[in-house]
């Protein structure tokens, strides 16, 4: 992870996309300082709060970070099957999240469990609160995780691949739920995923990561319409779409992500890039603004590449 810098505004939904090993989850974990050993935060700042009175997560004491976790920023994880403690009742685990912080009194915490489960659309919430996680389906567990995450009314919810382990219909329900909760509660959401469709349907802004770096970021609509980094462009061309490019072949990105302990020189994407120029092999490009609100880390940029060699784009 190197030089990753981004911001999330109040109430905003931001997607972080990238393939496995690109550093998306580590980025998310470091916001709560949950990076597993032997990983560590060597340097940098993670600021949270209003302009002028921001707190730096990296500098927090153990008590401060404990109070911060789950209270200011909550997190839900990829696999709802293993993310809840199998030996404790679901309702208890939600209540416990509130009991860990001072926002609610013990009685309020107890009384909020059932409404929270109802809010995430779990049927018969009174009975379900008394169930153990193994009595829940995968989708219901993820809903319960969301209820747990939102129980303290955090400003930010980090969802680390919340739909990856679920089947497609349930995925859609979870995404819809996240969108409604974001709208109703004003909780900002960072959605980490490798699923571009999920990003398109939920996020207003998207950050694309590759090899521990941000390679492109900007408003979702703009990125999907005119990606400027070849990696983003290739990602978008590698999924089938019903609305456009109907007669195109799907594109694959050849090769594998680089070994981060021994990264290639220059642009980290150049070994797999079909638009590379000599400069890409030697010098890493900066993350520069390419359009208002859109930044890309590329010497070439797709608009120039496509203008120069349209046949390479795979268009008919």
């Amino acid at each position, binding site marked *: 992870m190197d030089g990753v810098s981004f911001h999330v505004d109040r109430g905003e939904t931001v997607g972080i996309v990238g393939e496995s090993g690109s550093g998306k989850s580590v980025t998310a974990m470091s916001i*709560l300082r*949950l990076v*597993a050993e032997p990983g560590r935060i060597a340097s940098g700042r993670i600021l949270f709060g209003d302009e002028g009175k921001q707190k730096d997560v990296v500098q927090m004491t153990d008590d401060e970070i*404990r*109070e*911060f*976790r*789950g*209270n200011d920023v*909550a*997190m839900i*994880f990829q*696999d709802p099957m*293993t*993310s*809840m*403690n*199998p*030996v*404790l009742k679901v309702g208890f685990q939600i209540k*416990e*999240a509130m009991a*860990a*912080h001072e926002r609610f009194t013990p009685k309020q915490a107890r009384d909020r469990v059932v409404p929270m489960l109802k809010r995430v659309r779990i049927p018969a919430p009174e009975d379900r609160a008394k169930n*153990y996680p*193994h009595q829940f389906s995968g989708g219901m567990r993820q809903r319960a*995780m969301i209820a*747990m995450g939102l129980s303290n009314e955090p400003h930010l919810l980090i969802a680390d691949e919340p739909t990856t382990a679920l089947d497609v219909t349930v995925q859609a329900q979870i995404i819809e739920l996240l969108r409604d909760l974001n709208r109703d509660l004003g909780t900002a959401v960072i959605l980490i995923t490798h699923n571009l469709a999920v990003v398109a349907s939920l996020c207003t802004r998207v950050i694309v990561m590759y090899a521990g770096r941000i390679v492109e970021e900007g408003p979702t609509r703009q990125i999907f319409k005119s990606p400027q980094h070849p990696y983003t462009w290739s990602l978008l061309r590698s999924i089938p779409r019903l609305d456009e490019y109907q007669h195109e072949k799907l594109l694959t990105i050849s090769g594998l992500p680089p070994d981060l302990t021994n990264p290639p020189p220059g642009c980290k994407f150049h070994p797999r890039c079909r638009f590379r120029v000599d400069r890409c092999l030697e010098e890493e490009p900066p993350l520069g603004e390419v359009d208002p609100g859109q930044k890309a880390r590329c010497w070439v940029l797709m608009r120039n590449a496509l203008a120069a060699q349209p046949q390479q784009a795979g268009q008919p």
Partner: protein
Amino acid sequence: MTRGTFAYVGQRFVLIALTALVVSSIVFIGVHQLPGNAFLSERQSSPQREAELLHHYGLDKPLPQQYLAWVGGVLHGDLGESLVNRGVRITPLLLRELRVSATLGLFALLFTVVLGMGLGILAATKQNTWIDYAASFGGTVGYSMPNFVTATLLILLTVTGFYAWSGGAFYEDIGWGKPEQVIVPAIALGLYPMAIISRLTRASMLEVIRQDYVRTAWAKGLRPRLVVIRHSLRNALIPVVTILGPITTSVITGSVVIEYIFGIPGLGKEFVNSIFNRDYNIVIGVFTFYAILVGLANLAVDLVYPLLDPRIRY
């Protein structure tokens, strides 16, 4: 507790009874195959007296008949009479000795569980620090020292060592009967199982604290104490409870070595003496009692599982 639980427990009791029957008959046959009998001294002086005694105790009858007579006695709670200390009924004798061994054993068990689990948890939460290394080193030492070595070293330390160090004012008085005499043998008895428990707890905890739900617990902002005790320990206890069954049985039934070294009149000592003396009824009685106790301890362990993990049901 559901109907299923009662049915399950009922089945297990039947199995334990069958086990006791099989064990007692095997031991019965085995012990009668040993050369000699309890009346060796009589045999030298007067073979006729030996024959009288054999007849008196029914030992001249065929083995199946003797076994049935023994089972009949057991059903009335009577394990028979000692062949060596004639006239002594075995049932009260064993119960008295069991009380001694169990008292010592429960103290040893307390030491085992509290210190073993404590060290295991500490080592796991402070993995790869000097605390972990020290606990692991201590565990390995406890694990590899035979209990007669441990017992001898403890006697050296607490009996002669404390005596010399305090100028005779303070020392361990070896024997049995005073409350303070329990502590040192309990430590000697508990050190080995303590080492097992601590190593097992550490390994089990290390596995659990890497689970996703423990990460969730941290992400909720729970206090470290709650993450360790509520979210890790309970889940890590299952393998520990499993081994606790056999450990409990072996510890509360007394250790021959510890009882000899510390001069404690317990069941373990009686057991070995009875084999040497060919005191058939005691040998069979103690063996059968052990078999039942192992069965009960394992049943108790199985009944604890559902309390720890709601996914386990009977």
